[in-house]
Structure formats: C-alpha cells, structure tokens
C-alpha cells in the first residue's frame, strides 16, 4: 500500500496539475463555449508553443538550482537573425530555419554555460548580464530593421499554419515531442538523473563524482538551443519581427515552469509539469480575454496565480514534513 502510494507520488504532481488545467479550461468553456471549439483549442496550443518550449528548456536548469534569464533575449536574437538570413536568401526553406535557429541559441547557451559551470558564477547574475548583452546585440546588429511576412520563407509560414486533426498545430506537436523526449531523458538517462542530484545537493554531487561541469554546461546549451527553436516558432506564429521581439518575457517562462511544479530550490519537477504550467498560464490568459475581463486586471491575476501556485507547492511540502515528524514522534515514543 505504502509503496503503491509512493509510486504514484512523482506522477501525482503532474496529475493534479493536469486536473487543475482541465477544470480551468472547463470553467472558461462554460462561460464562453467558443473557447472549447476547434479554433479555441488550436489557439490555446498555438499561443502556448513558444513559452512551453522555453519552459521545457529551462526546466533542467531550474532543477539544477540555476536559472536562465537570457532566454527571451535569445528568442529575439534568433527570430531576427533567421528573418534577416531568409530575407537575404529567398530560396531558404523551413529546413534551414530549423537548423540555424537552435545553432544561434546554442551560442548564447555556451556563453552562459562557460560562465556558470566553468567559473561557478551565480547563474542569476550571469544570465541577467547575457540578457542585456544579447538584447543589445540584437539592437545593434538589426540597426532597427524589421521584417514582415513577405520576407520570410513561405514554407516556414505555411508550416506555422499547419494544423493536425483540426486542433493540433504543428508547433505544439513539436512541443509535445520535445516534452516527451526530455521527460524520458530526465527520467531514464544518467545525465538526466544527475541534474536532479546536482540541484538537490550540489556539494554531495561533487563528492560522489558526478560530472557537474559537463551537466550544467550542457543544460545551458540545451536551454539556448530550445530558445533558438522558440525563436523560429516566434516567426511561424507572428510572421513579423523587430529587435524588441519577445522583450521582457523571461519571467513569464520562469513563472510557467514554477507553476508547473519545477521548484526554484532545485531537485524536483519535470518537463511535463513545465508544459502543463505553460498551458495553464495561457489558458488563464486566453480565458480572461475570452471572458472579456478588463485588460487592466490581467497582470494582477497572473501574479496572484503564481503566488497561489508556489503556496500550494509549499503546503504540499509542509504536509509531507509533518507526516515525517509524526512518524518520528511515534518511533521515539
């Protein structure tokens, strides 16, 4: 019985998040049935894709007790670069974009990784620094040139419009794919397990000889690559880009991951949770718009939601602490 429950436990978090998501979708749908139509569902997936992809990339980093604030700038950088390259090479198709995007993102990831893992500098400060540097680089390089749909590869934009079964956009299908692969990787590969160990007890990770540098470095490179891919997604979705693209969205990504049960203190969380977290945030965003809530209160509701989410997390942790204490008292008696 006991082991049955503990086997359920890791899945429990994602399960309850999933239920919360369904309830939220349900409530919104009750108030406004159009939210649940094919278009409504498709819109939800389309608009979640970018943040979800970034949250999947960020999850391993947060699990390792780090953070990557530079992702939004990286999205801006890749989106602009790809538009620029495609504009200059009209024969480019989506294939090139899907290759170039992650590569550009990885450059930022390598920089972050070297500084955080190599010099062991605090990731908050390092990625805050690269946030500015990368955004500044977009400003300077772009020289305020912006790009529109007609300058982008039509095959890329078509792909952005592609929808399976009427509800599943191509981009979100890729997100699900990325989510499943990373979830599998984090659960079934040593490198993935090392991430949890490193975030859980960095000191002990050194003692038992885990490859802390390599894992940390690669996690940042991975996050960079995902941010690069997210840059491609950004173009597919908006078909326009200027140097301020995705400005200031980094905290939204952190929020999605945290709401999805990836704890800032490290050591726990999954990419499935992070994806559900992103969906939840977007459902509420979209729901508020669909219900017609005053735009002015939207940000307040978002903030409140995040606080409630971490409070729920804390309460769960407290509960298990209390169970342990009770157990201890019984032993001591």
């Amino acid at each position: 019985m006991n082991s049955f429950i503990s086997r359920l436990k890791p899945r429990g978090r994602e399960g309850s998040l999933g239920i919360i998501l369904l309830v939220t979708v349900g409530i919104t749908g009750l108030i406004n049935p159009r939210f649940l139509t094919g278009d409504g569902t498709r819109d939800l997936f389309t608009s979640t894709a970018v943040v979800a992809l970034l949250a999947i990339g960020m999850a391993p980093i947060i699990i390792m007790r780090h953070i990557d604030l530079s992702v939004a700038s990286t999205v801006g950088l890749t989106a602009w670069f790809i538009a620029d390259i495609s504009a200059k090479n009209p024969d480019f198709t989506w294939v090139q974009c899907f290759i170039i995007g992650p590569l550009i993102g990885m450059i930022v990831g390598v920089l972050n990784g070297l500084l955080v893992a190599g010099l062991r500098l605090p990731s908050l400060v390092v990625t805050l620094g690269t946030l500015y540097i990368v955004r500044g680089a977009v400003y300077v390089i772009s020289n305020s040139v912006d790009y529109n749909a007609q300058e982008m590869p039509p095959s890329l934009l078509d792909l952005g419009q592609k929808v399976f079964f009427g509800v599943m956009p191509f981009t979100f299908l890729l997100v699900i794919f990325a989510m499943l692969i990373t979830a599998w990787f984090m659960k079934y590969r040593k490198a993935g397990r090392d991430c949890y160990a490193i975030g859980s007890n960095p000191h002990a990770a050194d003692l038992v000889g885990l490859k802390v540098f390599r894992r940390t470095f690669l996690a940042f490179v991975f996050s960079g690559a995902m941010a690069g891919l997210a840059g491609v997604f950004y173009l597919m979705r908006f078909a326009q880009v200027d140097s301020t693209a995705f400005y200031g969205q980094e905290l939204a990504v952190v929020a999605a991951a945290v709401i999805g049960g990836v704890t800032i203190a490290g050591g726990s969380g999954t990419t499935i949770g992070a994806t559900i977290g992103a969906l939840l945030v977007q459902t509420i965003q979209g729901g508020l718009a669909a219900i017609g809530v005053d735009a002015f209160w939207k940000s307040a509701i978002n903030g409140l939601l995040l606080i409630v989410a971490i409070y729920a997390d804390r309460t769960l942790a407290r509960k298990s602490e209390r169970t342990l204490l009770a157990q201890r008292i019984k032993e001591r008696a």
Partner: protein
Amino acid sequence: MAQQGDLLLQMKGVQKRFGGAIALSGTDLSIRAGEIHALLGENGAGKSTMLKILAGVHVNDGGTISMAGRSFQTGSPQASIEQGIAVIYQEPSLFLDLTLAENVFIGRQPMKGAAIDWTLVQNEAARLFDELGVPLDPKRLARGLSIADQQVVEIAKALSMNANIILMDEPTAALSASEVERLMTVMQSLKAANKAVIFVSHRLDEVFMISDFITVMRDGATVSENSVEQTDMQKVIKEMVGRELTELFPKTEHDIGDVVLEVKDITNPAYFRNISFKVRKGEIVALAGLVGSGRSEVARAIFGIDKYDSGSVEVNGELLQKGSPIVSMERKIALVPEDRRQQGLFMIAGVDRNIAMESFDRLKGKIFLNFKKERTLTETWRDKLSIKFESASDPVDSLSGGNQQKTVLAKWLATNPDILIVDEPTRGIDVGTKAEVHKLIDAAAGEGKAVLMISSELPEVLGMADRIIVMREGHQVAELSRKDATQEKVIAAATTGSKGA
C-alpha cells in the same frame, strides 16, 4: 582478483596543508587485501583528511600514493571511484529529493538498452538494505530520513560500488548497537571477499573487536602501525594522546552554590521526553550519551532555538520564556553550539565582528557602534584566551579550528553569562588547545557560572564534570556523581539504558 594479504594501497609521507594549517605532515599507511584497518587518532589528527585524499576530494601536497603497485591518481572523486575506492563520509551527503534506491546508485545506474533499469535499481537497493538488515523502503525519498538511516544508505551505496577498498569515516557514530552489529557482519563479509576496509572510529572497543590492523595518527603524522594482537587499548590511547591524560583535564574544585538553572520535565516528543535537572553556581554538569541521543536538542530548547511542548525552565527560580534566544540572553544564558562553522560563527566575517556580535549593548552609544570599544573588546579577549590571528578583521574562516572554537567561546564569555551551555566544546580541535578550552570552562565555573557541558568524548565528560546526566534515545537514563562515574557505567547507561529509564 587480489589475494588475501596482497598489498593493495600504500601511502608514504603524505602531506596536506590548508592555508597555514598543516593537516598531514608525512603520514604513512599500508593496506592489504582482506583486512580491516582501523585509523585512530584524536580529533583533528588528520584521519578524515587522509580518507578525503583517497576519495579524491583533496589533493595531497606531497608524498606518494600507490595502488596495487601503480601510482594512484588523486584529485577527482570520479577517478577514485574508478580506481576501486568507495567512501562513507563522516557527514552523510545524500540527495534529499531522490529516492533511497537512486541515492545508492546515483551516477552508476544499471542500464537496460538506452534506459535506466529502474526495476533493477530498486531490487538491488532492496537487496542491499536486506543485507544490512534495515527495513528501508527503497522507493521513499531521502528527505526526512534520520541521521542513522542516512548513514545506512551511505553504507549501502559504498557496498554497491563493489570497490576494492572501502573507506568508512566514523560510520558507527550515529548507529544503534544492533545496527553496529550488522555493519560488523557486513564488514566481515567484505573481508572474506578479499576487500579492504579502512575504518575510522572513536569507539575503541569496536575497533579492537573487528580490526586486524591499527594505525594511530597524531598531529598529522603516523605514530604506529600494529596488528591488533601486537597492541592493546592502553597503548593505543597513549599513542593517540601523546602525553598523560590527566593534563588534559585541569579540573579544580570550586564552591558549588545555589541552583541557577532548573529544567523541569521538558518534552519535545520528536527529540526528548521528560528531561529534568538542576545546575548550580560553580558546577559543571555534563550531558552524556551517544550521538543522536537528543542532547543538543535539549540545549537548543533551553536556549530557545527550538520550542518544547511541555515542562518548564527556570533561571534563578523564575520561569524562562520558551522559544526566544533574545530573552534567554537577557536572562544571562549563553549557548556555544556544537557546529561552530554553521551555528557558532559567521565564517566570512572578521574575528572582531564575531566577538562583538553578542555585545552590541555595551558597544554602542545612543545609536551607533563605537568602533574603539569594539577593538578593545577584541583585544581583551584575544589576550584572555590567547586567540591567534594576524589581524582582527581577518575572516574567522582563515583561523585554525582551535582558534575558531576559542572565538566562539570568547563571544559568549564576553556577554558575561550566569549560565554557560557548551555543546561539544572541543570537537575537532587539537590536543593542546583542548586542554586550554578545558581550562577556560573550568575557569568559568570558578567565576561562579553554572556550566552545562555536552560532550561525546567520555574522558572529557569524566574529567571535567561534577555531575553526569546520561541520555539515551531522548530519555534521561542515569545521573552519576563525579566520584561514582566510570567509563563503564556511562557507556552502559548510554547504550542499554540500564539504571533508570
């Protein structure tokens, strides 16, 4: 496969320095296959440092290490593991967010194809726990495990590595008698499989029961290496300490006055139950017991770090508010905590800042701190306790362990308390300094302070205390006066709870 008696590991003239402090000054150690080799020495003799060099945590500054004839590569835990070394550290270092099974196999999980074979991980962990005879669920998280159980997981981890040499740094310190027995069985079976165990322990009876060889260290150097038949307990103690034991405990007789601290029936069900005792002016009362018996928690509860559920504490006959260190300090109680690095000191702050910490009332004018007074205070206590440092603004981190301990004592003595509680006051400090600390504690009692001392070192308890209260698993099991107390009686009470309970 090594044969019984083959030389597995040889360390010659190994040296290690930490900044200015010399931890190892040329240590030798030879380990053969199929032996249990005890490494003995006072606190700070350098035992852990030896093991950590083998474990790849530290790199030796000098000397040679060879393993099975080849030069041993130090400096990376990974390399050590690959060279067949497994370690059980003094402080358990588990990953609290991972399951026990995963803690055992982290970094070495068995694979099935491209994926970790979780069933195998769990079954293997369960098998190891079975072998160790502990009913631990391999699927539970490590968070919330007791220190003893954490140690068991560490042991399971070391066993699972299938290493040739297993290093155990005080593995029994937190274990109960039956758990110790099982560990010994495991060690025997390792020996039978021709592996070597290096075993550090302060419990000499255990050492003599199980080991084949005993190496004694003192002040970072090897003093002797003998097979267990060639030596005996008296000889080993003498080699460890290097001088007559009596010098260590400069206890003098003081007048014992009225009751200053009275603890009445305090209970915190998770840690201790129904603890009652009195400490008088000029008296040193020791709380003895095994690690984990709850002594520190009693001290914390009195001082107000933790709360307790029932009972009361009185100071000079008046009730002490619980749960408030500030009030306790006002009532002139001082607590020198057991972990000076975590609890006693602000390691990156200067010596002066640390010493001033509890004495702001006397250092400030109306609002602002008077830096001149602060300097005087530091100098006063530097001279009184002969604390050695170069500049008062040096971070205490740069001080040697003994001087750190003196700094903690200084900052609390500077508050001129009526009640001085010291928890493991000599942990990790060298022999000479130890005697000085004992002198300080004795002097404090001489000035009429009531002293409550917690110590895991029996000689210290026997040598310093006027009265000894023994705790076992959170219960107060015996009270012995200075003249009644013997090593045997205290051990008997601490391990079996005989007398009382």
